Each structure stands twice: as structure tokens, then as C-alpha cells.
């Protein structure tokens, strides 16, 4: 008897310990959430701060921390973004301690929001949120910033005042601000994807740079027959889709767009889309298009482009063209050239081509659960001021850049690193201009990031499309609208992709399938989607 009671007691003790340790966890966390809450009330004192006082504001006093959720982060030198020189420096200057949370995956943000366990701030493409910014505001995922911007974001408000066209883009239809936007500060920066081909091959074969679809056919055929390319043209489908290369020649596209009457249309139901699909099917059949076109990924395309398997591709200035030029630097005469978005007839300009709006929905939002709103706003607003702009775009003076004749020039330490680290890798440690950050991207960044003349020329070449006239801006939907069309839109895209690929791969014939395709899209609710998009666009135009 005595023995068993002893056992029982010890068991109870163990269980109590377990429970106590759980309870301990709970209480510390609560403590952590409670204390900083007081900070936000102190905000009133700095309400009257103006730009001239900016210097005095930073670094903020006291223990200011925010948690910052972003998507994936992969870097050889820095385990989290918070470890980068840029963030370390910014934390020091602003006096705000930032704890980064990185999660990768298409569903990461969806799961974060569904869990309700929101961080203080997060980086996201707001137009991807169902219902867009409006719904995010309604659901409390993000906080309305108008008043906070008035109080604590003099730099950003100054930028909006100076650039009314940006101001229009970054608001909801009701005039609410909801994030710290990533803005492409120059037209030059909005174009960064396009067709490109092996210049050395073109020269060898005495071919001029192809401009029309027919010339492309000749070139690809020559690449195949004369140069032994087994996959003359290759690309990642996602890039073709977002750039509308080739399809633009047929006055069709992969996206919703604004036609010349100002109406929203879906580019993949235009007659031209059928012709485009037929052309690609022909190219595939004749072995001019990569036989693995539905599955090739970035690495495979890179391998093909640098080893002579492919001679032409569609891709980005930096991560594709620049990377391939570097990777193939030991290949004799290897050279790439950016080519015009092809057209049907010589001298025309393609109706579509990759071109982004200065603001396309990407930015940093402050959640309704944010504990220290002032710290968050001050931290990000710094990036839109003079000093912050330089820090975000060029890094730390004397380390990652020098001012030479008033031009911020990246140092060799960054661009030609002795340890062989790529400029992209180095720049991501010192700047955030290369990818979606809370900043106004500086043209001078791209002028240097595009190290090769080929890249600079490519951008100029790719700018020659009418894509900019047709792009949908970052319109916002109401919650009802997005509930109604969210799933339909994704089903429509999926179905379009399916038919497109099956036709290109020769599984079906696009001409016999076309009527059925159009009917099916209508049955799925394409007209409803168009109506909603039109409403949203009208509201946008009335902002």
C-alpha cells in the first residue's frame, strides 16, 4: 500500500511539473504582449513632429521591438533577413529592434492569416489577398494607416504629395492607405523581362535579330539544324505568362487587360490566342520548342541556355540574362542579345509585353494586432527619407557604395567580390533594392546591377511594346466581389493553361477545341469576372 502511494505521489509531482512549465510559458508570453502596448499611447507626444524634426526622432527612445513576417529568405551568409548589414544598420539608426519571421510556400501567408496569430508587420502582395486590400482592412489583417501616416510618416506623405500618380495607386477606392509600398521609382525599372537569344549564333549564321514571328521561325530552325540545338526555344511557363511574349504579336495575352475602349477583356479568349497556340504547337511539333516545355524549371532553362541545348529564351535581365552571361563566360564567344517582343509584321509594335505599374500591390502592412504602431511606422518611414532611400538602395556608404561625382557607385567589394560571391548575393546583404522591399527603387541601382551592356540594351529594347497601355492597375475588390470571383478566376486560369498545353503538346487540336473552350469559360463564369473587374476598374478611375 505504502509503495503504491509513493508511486502515485511521484507521478503527481511529475505531472504538476509538466503543467507548471506549460503555465510558465503562457505567462511569459502574455507579459511580452502586454508591456509594449503602453508605448503606442505615448505616440501623441510626437504627433506634431515635422520633417525638420526628423533627425531628432531617430533613434527612437526606449525598448522598441516589432515582429516582421516575410516570405521565404534564402541567403548563404545570413540565416535571416534581420542578420543582413542593411537591417542591422537600419535597426541601429531607427532604434527599433526587428524580429524577422520567414515562412516559405504558396500557402504560408494563407495559413498565417487563418491562424489569427498575426505578427506586427508583414510583407505581402496585397492584390493577392482575396478581396484585396479592402478585405484585408475589413478583416483586421491590416490596419488603416491614414492617421498614423499623418502622425508618424512625414517622408512617405511627402513622396505621395510629390507623386500624385503613385498616391492614386497605393490607396483603396475609399482613399485608405494600407501599407508601405514597394515603388519602382522610374519607368526604366518597370521593364525587366523579355525574349533573348544567342547573339554569337545569330552572327555565325548571318541572321539578323528576329522581329517577326516568321523571322523567329527561321532563326529557331537554323539554331536546330545548323547549331544542333535540341530545344532551340525554351522558357519557364510562368515567365511566358507574365510577360506575354510571342502571344502579344497576335494581339492576345494571358491576362485580363484594358482594351482601347477602356473596357476589361480577357486576353486568352481573343481570336489571336488561338493563332498563337497553333503557332507554338507547330513549333513544338517541329522540335523548335523545348520538348519538356510544361515542366522545365529555372535551373533546367539555365542549363540549356548555357550549354548550347537552347538558343533562345524568355527571361529576366538579372537573374536570367546576367546569370547566364556570367555562367557561360568560359564558353568561347558566348553572347546574348535582348530581342524585341515579336510581332506579325515588320515595323509593328507588340500589343503586349512585360511592363509593371510603379506600384503593383507589394508592400509592408501593419496588422491590427501590432503592439507598437509608432515604432513600426517610424521604422518603415525612415526608408522613404533621403538617408533611408540611400540605405535601402545602395547600402552603407564606404562599404557597399561610394559617392563618385554625386553618383552612388557600388564598390568592387560588392560587384566584384574577391571571394567570388555574386553581385546579387552581396547586394541582398546590403540593400533591398533587388527585391520587394518598402522603398522607392532607384534607377541608379539597376544601371549598375545590370553589369553587362547587353542587359542595359535589352531593357531599352523590351520597353518597345504597348503593354503599358493595357495593363490592369492594382484595382481593389469588395469582399462580396472577391468571394464571388476568387475561385472562378483560379479555375479559369487552370483551365486555360490546361487547354493551352494540351494543344501545344499535340494532345488536342486547338481549332476543333476552340468553340468548346470559349463555351466552357463562359459556363465557368468568365462574364461575371469581367463585370466585376470592370466595376473595380471604374472605381479605380474615379479615385
Amino acid at each position, binding site marked *: 500500500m505504502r509503495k*503504491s502511494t509513493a*508511486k*502515485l505521489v511521484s*507521478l503527481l509531482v511529475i*505531472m504538476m511539473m509538466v503543467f507548471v512549465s506549460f503555465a510558465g510559458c503562457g505567462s511569459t508570453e502574455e507579459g511580452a504582449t502586454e508591456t509594449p502596448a503602453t508605448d503606442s499611447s505615448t505616440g501623441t507626444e510626437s504627433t506634431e513632429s515635422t520633417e525638420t524634426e526628423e533627425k531628432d526622432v531617430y533613434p527612437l527612445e526606449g525598448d522598441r521591438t516589432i515582429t516582421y513576417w516575410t516570405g521565404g529568405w534564402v541567403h548563404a551568409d545570413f540565416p535571416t533577413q534581420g542578420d543582413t548589414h542593411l537591417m542591422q544598420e537600419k535597426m541601429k539608426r531607427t532604434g527599433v529592434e526587428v524580429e524577422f519571421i520567414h515562412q516559405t510556400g*504558396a*500557402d504560408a501567408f*494563407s*495559413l498565417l*492569416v*487563418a*491562424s*489569427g496569430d498575426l505578427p506586427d508587420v508583414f510583407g505581402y502582395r496585397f492584390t493577392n*489577398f*482575396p478581396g484585396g486590400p479592402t478585405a484585408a482592412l*475589413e*478583416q*483586421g*489583417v491590416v490596419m488603416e494607416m491614414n492617421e498614423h501616416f499623418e502622425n508618424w510618416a512625414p517622408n512617405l506623405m511627402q513622396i505621395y504629395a510629390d507623386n500624385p500618380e503613385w498616391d492614386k495607386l497605393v490607396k483603396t477606392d475609399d482613399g485608405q492607405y494600407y501599407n508601405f509600398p514597394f515603388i519602382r521609382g522610374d519607368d526604366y525599372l518597370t521593364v525587366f523581362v523579355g525574349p533573348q537569344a544567342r547573339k554569337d549564333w545569330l552572327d555565325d549564321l548571318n541572321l539578323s535579330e528576329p522581329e517577326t514571328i516568321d523571322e523567329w521561325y527561321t532563326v529557331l530552325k537554323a539554331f536546330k539544324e545548323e547549331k544542333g540545338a*535540341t*530545344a532551340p526555344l525554351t522558357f519557364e*511557363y510562368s515567365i511566358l505568362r507574365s510577360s506575354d511574349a510571342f502571344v502579344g504579336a497576335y494581339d492576345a495575352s494571358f491576362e485580363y487587360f484594358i482594351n482601347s475602349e477602356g473596357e476589361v477583356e480577357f486576353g486568352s479568349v481573343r481570336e489571336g490566342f488561338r493563332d498563337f497556340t497553333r503557332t507554338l504547337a507547330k513549333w513544338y511539333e517541329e522540335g523548335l520548342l523545348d*520538348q*519538356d*516545355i*510544361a*515542366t*522545365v524549371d529555372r535551373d*533546367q532553362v539555365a542549363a540549356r541556355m548555357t550549354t548550347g*541545348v537552347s538558343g533562345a529564351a524568355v527571361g529576366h535581365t538579372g537573374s536570367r540574362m546576367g546569370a547566364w552571361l556570367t555562367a557561360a563566360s568560359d564558353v568561347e564567344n558566348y553572347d546574348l542579345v535582348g530581342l524585341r517582343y515579336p510581332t506579325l509584321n515588320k515595323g509593328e509594335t507588340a500589343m503586349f509585353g512585360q511592363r509593371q505599374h510603379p506600384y503593383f500591390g507589394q508592400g509592408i502592412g501593419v496588422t*491590427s494586432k501590432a503592439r507598437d504602431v509608432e515604432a513600426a511606422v517610424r521604422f518603415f518611414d525612415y526608408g522613404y527619407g533621403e538617408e533611408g532611400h540611400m540605405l535601402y538602395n545602395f547600402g552603407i556608404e564606404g562599404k557597399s557604395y561610394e559617392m563618385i561625382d554625386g553618383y552612388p557607385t557600388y564598390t568592387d567589394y560588392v560587384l566584384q567580390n574577391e571571394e567570388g560571391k555574386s553581385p546579387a548575393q552581396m547586394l541582398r546583404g546590403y540593400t533591398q533594392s533587388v527585391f520587394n522591399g518598402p522603398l522607392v527603387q532607384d534607377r541608379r541601382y539597376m544601371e549598375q546591377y545590370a553589369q553587362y551592356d547587353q542587359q542595359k540594351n535589352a531593357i531599352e529594347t523590351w520597353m518597345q511594346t504597348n503593354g503599358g497601355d493595357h495593363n490592369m492597375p492594382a484595382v481593389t475588390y469588395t469582399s462580396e466581389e472577391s*468571394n464571388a470571383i*476568387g*475561385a472562378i478566376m*483560379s*479555375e479559369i486560369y*487552370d*483551365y486555360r*493553361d*490546361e487547354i*493551352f*498545353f*494540351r494543344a501545344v*503538346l499535340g*494532345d488536342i487540336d486547338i481549332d476543333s477545341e476552340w468553340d468548346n473552350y470559349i463555351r*466552357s469559360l463562359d*459556363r*465557368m463564369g468568365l462574364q461575371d469576372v469581367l463585370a466585376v473587374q470592370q466595376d473595380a476598374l471604374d472605381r479605380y478611375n474615379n479615385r
Partner: protein
Amino acid sequence: MIKNQSYKVEEPFIVRLKKDLKVNTSLYFIVLPVVLFYLVFRYFPMYGTLIAFKNYSPGLGIFGSPWVGFSHFIRFFTGNFFVRVVSNTFILSFYELLFGFPMPIILAILINEVRSRRYRKLVQTVTYMPFFISLVVVCGMIVQFSATDGIINDIIYLFGGRRVPLMQRASYFRPMFIISGIWQHSGWGSIIYLAALMAIDPSLYESAEIDGANRFQKIRYITIPSIVPTIVIMFILRMGRILNIGFEKIILLYNPSTYQVADVISSYVYRVGLTNFSWSYSTAVGLVNSVVNLMFLVAANKLSKKATDSSLW
């Protein structure tokens, strides 16, 4: 430790429980953490299923979100892809059962027959290995190997065949999926059967040998009948997952040209539901999936009870 106690049958459950609590107190304490675990982590989260009948909005929370009745279910059942995803799920599942289920059994029997200890160990290690490779890596390998310049096509080409982009042909998707599944799982799955084989009384084999039975006869009349109960239990459990085709492998392997055969319920839920933030809709479809699974489990159990006397409950 276990103290048997005879009860009068008429005594109500509560009274019996009270008595038993007194007698076997420490046993109840031992089981308590497990019960708690199930309550907290398995039963409590079930209230989240409520959102299948609501329009879930994170700002309003599970209880605050408005009720919408069965509208999400109706949307799924009347949707454009309902027939396709459900039939794809059943077909893929059926093939997996047909070809995938017997493989571990065959493998276990074969391994059991191997006489050389060393060779046997080698075979086991080699067949278990794929199970430990991350799915993402496995699928990456499959995609790379099956590309036109991949190793599979190199072999086909070597024997005079034409290079075919295997993952882009709808007709090859199911075989690729099933075969790679067998490669991944049969080794690992054979472990439980090997354990069952170990338990067979060697004297059975000895007497069969005296009776002049050859190897095949021994397999047929001793080995297989001895592991039938294990097979049945495994089969019932498998039936409970009939619609659970892992979406991870599907979404890592499919592309638009194979949607028509590859898109199953779970991948559809992931693509249309989760990545589109349609939590309520995904929950509704997921619930349908679970209910069907449960029905299959119960049916299989009933059937096996009738046919073989072995069942889960």
C-alpha cells in the same frame, strides 16, 4: 498489477467505473496523458470544422463568422471540376490499392525466402532507403529523370526508342505516380509483414518438409495463410485512407498538361482553396473527403468481419 474483479452485469457503468477507479487507480493515471492528448489535440480542434458551414473571416474568428449553411458543399458538388477530381481520386486510389498494396506483401515473402543473411540485409536496406528521401527530392528526381534529356529517356533512346517527355503525357501520369509510389513505400511497408512472418511457428515448416512440400507449396499453404490476419487489418486501414492521396506528391508532379488525370480532391483543395484563402470552402471539401473515407473504413471492416472474422472492432 491488473486486478480482476467480477462485476454483476446489472450494475450501471458509472458504478463499475467508480469501483474500477479505486482498484486500478495507477493504471488510470498512466492512461490519463494519452486521453488528454487526444482530447486536446485530436478532439478539441474538431470544432474548427464549423467553418465549413460558415464564411470564415480571420478577423471575426470561428464563432463570429456568419453561417452560410451548405452553400460551400453545394458549390463543390455543382462545380465545374467535381466529377473530374472525384473520379481521378477514385481511379488513382484504386490503382494504388491494386498495384501498391500487394507489393510489400510480395516483397516480404521474397525477403523471407532469401537464405543468405548478408544479401537479405542488403536487400532490406536498399528497399527501405527511398522511404527516407524527402518527397520534394523524390519528385524532383522523377521530373528530372523523366525529362527528354533525363536518364529514363537515355535508356529508352539507347534501345532505339523515341525520347518522350513522360511527365507531360497524361497517359503516363498514373503509371509514373503508382510505380514511383511502389518504389518509395514497398520496402518500408514490408516491415510489418516481415514481423508477422517471424511469428510463424518453424515446426510448421519442418512438418511440411517431412511431408515433401516444396518451397512454393510452403509459401502457399503456410506462409500466406499465416499472415492473412495482418493483411486484412492492413487492408482495412488502407481503405480508411482511400481518398487520401497525398496532395504534396501530386502538386509536385503535375502540370497543366496532366491536370485532366492528375487533379485529385486534395490537390484541388490546395490549389483552389488554400492558396486562394478560401478556408471555408477547403474545409467543406476536406470534410466530404473524410466522411467518404470513414464510410469506406466502416464498410471494409464489416466485410472483413463477415469474410474472415478479423476486424478492427
